[in-house]
């Protein structure tokens, strides 16, 4: 029924199956980091969730149903994944 051939979408940059390489978020989602190995403290008491408003986790990691009807397939900046490795 579908006139289009089934095509596998695969990103060679980040191994995601949700987008192709030319539309990989890593193309634009890059931060220019401060130099130095100074150990950075994480302000844990200021982590809030954009989805439920509660404290202690980011919106991408919320266990409640999603409040916004717009999908978030590739993940956003507001995720535990977006913390530097030393503090994860």
């Amino acid at each position, binding site marked *: 029924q579908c006139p289009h051939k089934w095509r596998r979408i695969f990103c060679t940059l980040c191994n995601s199956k949700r987008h192709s390489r030319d539309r990989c978020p890593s193309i*634009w989602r890059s931060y220019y980091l401060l130099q130095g190995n100074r150990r*950075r403290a*994480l*302000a844990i008491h200021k982590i809030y969730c*954009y989805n439920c408003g509660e404290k202690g986790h980011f919106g991408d990691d919320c266990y409640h149903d999603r409040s*916004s009807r717009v999908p978030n397939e590739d993940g*956003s900046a*507001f995720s535990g994944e977006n913390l530097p490795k030393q503090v994860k």
Partner: protein
Amino acid sequence: TLNTDYPWILNHDHSKQREIADWLTLEIKDFVAYISPSQEEITVRNATIGKIRRAVKELWPDADLHVFGSFATDLYLPGSDIDCVVNSSAGDKENRNCLYSLASFLKRRKLATQVEVIAKARVPIIKFVEPESQIHIDVSFERTNGVEAAKIIRGWLTQTPGLRELVLIVKQFLSARRLNNVHTGGLGGFSVICLVYAFLELHPRTLSADISTTENLGILLMDLFELYGKNFGYDHVAIAVQSDGASYLPKQKNSNLQNPRTSFSLAIQDPGDANNNISRGSFNIRDIKKAFAGAFDLLTNRCFELDAATFKDRVGKSILGNVIKYRGKER
């Protein structure tokens, strides 16, 4: 090549940047520098306010004129009007007679043309144009909350690098889409500042303190449009701002912040009154959210397009151009 649509990119080409996010950061800085008032414009504005102020004091020796709003926080776009308030020790200047006597006094002194007295509104004001500078001025009476808010905002601006730049971009973006007028359900200037301030305060990279915000304005602008355009739970989450920080709170815990007609509304808790929602006038939040999402899609698509293009094709291009649509006078 002459480019009148994106005048801020003239002689500021960043097409050789390796990271597209860095290119966007530099373009944001160029745009902010382009729309920021020149020393001459600042002098004219200050002189104009000085004249009005002296006239008010002459008419009412117990009164004084203060500026608030975007003029007092240095967050205004070219051609925006100046908000002032007349406060007096007697506290009696808000009655209709006083409004009309100030209006005719300013007219007689040739300090005001196109005068409108709006006496019946919740906040009575006089609107006029100062003839020499052609600046639009709004005067309200006997209130201090605007002056207080300006003080809080100036504190945020000194503690939060990048706040000024992002606020100016978002304001320009909303004004190009006519979503910046509270009377038509748009976002007012104070609400925009609160949204950007809460975003910067609660961003994971700010919390971990491993980036400089002013070196990451590009990616932060995209993160901001993504948060408020795609992900933010307007039905369930309210934003709380204090003079020293921002947080979220579940709306169900503070029903005063909830709009009685719809759960889908923006709620920003007033730092001065926990039961007051600063943004309750912004009833068109659906279009505002859509506009933010559209800006995010425009920016990401533009990044993919320019990332795939050859350096030759990138020369003289703008990333921000279609997002902020500057249609003002050339500066």
